């Protein structure tokens, strides 16, 4: 039987309580759903002195649609399974939902929260890629106030984000997009629970003109979530130039640790996923 190490446990119901309590501990672990965190505790990968359960903070359990700003805010306590019934029907939300519905199974999605999926920093997590592709921001709170960081700039390296001690992810916000095509694909090795590559893309095409096109990639091959700038392309007949740029991007990425001789394989997987995404969003 796998038993976690010993720790204190506190449940927080108000944001202010969180800010007051979090500094009292040297290595707090913040959980909302706790699926991955509890697994990491059981495997003793992490040894916090306290586990802070924030699932009772109602301010983080909201979805706000601001029609004037054309913006959606998803609170970090929202469960992944809930997204299906509460997200608006715009294209950005469609891409986020595509990513969310590929996480685990219904039970895992009923437990796992948006905040957990975004904050963990696991390159195999689904939401960061989709959120980075749609240009979402992470809304981060602390005793000092609120700051926003583009999701694509949240990740330093695997399991390391830009969130500092004392900060909490309040949620993510993004602009609603209409009339876009979306693509979400990933390749994983099931028995190793190893996500080699994840690619999210979204594009607006009118006739042969590309009005807007965005892509983000993640997975073990890349190591973290990265947004790829494709703004220079404006025609769908530039597809070969787009693929050349993606090829260059993959070749320039550091995949130098080839102890297992898998670099060629990783590059092939990423390029296949990227080309598939481009074909899907630019197809007539």
């Amino acid at each position: 039987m796998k038993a976690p190490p010993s720790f204190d446990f506190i449940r927080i119901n108000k944001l202010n309580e969180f800010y007051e309590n979090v500094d009292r501990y040297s290595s707090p672990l913040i959980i909302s759903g706790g699926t991955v965190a509890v697994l990491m505790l059981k495997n003793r990968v992490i040894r916090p002195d306290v586990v802070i359960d924030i699932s009772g903070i109602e301010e983080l359990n909201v979805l706000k649609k601001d029609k004037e700003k054309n913006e959606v805010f998803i609170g970090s306590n929202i469960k992944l399974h809930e997204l299906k019934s509460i997200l608006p029907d715009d294209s950005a939300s469609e891409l986020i939902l595509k990513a969310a519905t590929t996480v685990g199974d219904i039970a895992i999605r009923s437990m796992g929260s948006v905040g957990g999926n975004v904050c963990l920093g696991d390159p195999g997590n689904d939401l960061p890629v989709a959120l980075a592709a749609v240009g979402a921001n992470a809304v981060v709170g602390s005793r000092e106030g609120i700051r926003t960081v583009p999701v694509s700039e949240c990740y330093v390296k695997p399991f390391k984000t830009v969130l500092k001690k004392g900060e909490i992810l309040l949620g993510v916000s993004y602009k609603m997009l209409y009339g876009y095509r979306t693509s979400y694909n990933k390749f994983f090795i099931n028995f190793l629970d190893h996500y080699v590559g994840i690619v999210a893309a979204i594009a607006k095409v009118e006739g042969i003109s590309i009005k807007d096109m965005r892509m983000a990639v993640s997975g073990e091959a890349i190591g973290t979530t990265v947004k790829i700038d494709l703004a220079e392309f404006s025609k769908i007949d530039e597809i070969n130039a787009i693929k050349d740029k993606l090829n260059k991007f993959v070749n320039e990425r550091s995949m130098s640790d080839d102890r297992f001789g898998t670099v060629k394989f990783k590059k092939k997987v990423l390029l296949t996923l990227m080309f598939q995404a481009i074909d899907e969003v630019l197809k007539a």
Partner: protein
Amino acid sequence: MRIRLNINGKDYESDVEPRTLLVDFIRDVAGLKGTHIGCETGSCGACMVLLDGKPVKSCLMLAAQAEGKKIVTVEGLSEGGKLNAVQKSLSQKKALQCGFCAAGFSIMGTWILENEQDTDYERVKSDLAGVVCRCSGYEPIINAIVEAAKNERKD
């Protein structure tokens, strides 16, 4: 820490360590052994329970997280010794063999009947993705749940 959990409509209270998992509280404090411990990584679904009506894997949750919520285990699905529609169908169709996964499929099947509009073969198969059976090959289980849904909706 003192934890009180409501399981199958009954309160269970005990002094446990904060690191106590929900599945251990259910089995060792409440004495409800129908919820099994399988893979311990959230993959097999043998420890599945309903938490406020939603399926969760109790090996991936601390008991303290479940305080104030209503938990239903496989024992809580039947009333007065009468099996619910899913359990009855699994039994009548002889869908299970060793029975280790029975809790997971019964809980998940019950959730499907209560929450899914569409209960055709493909939907049920997809919803059951988080529960593993190592004997039956899934076909009889999926068919039993589809049948239970048909019968329930007929009534």
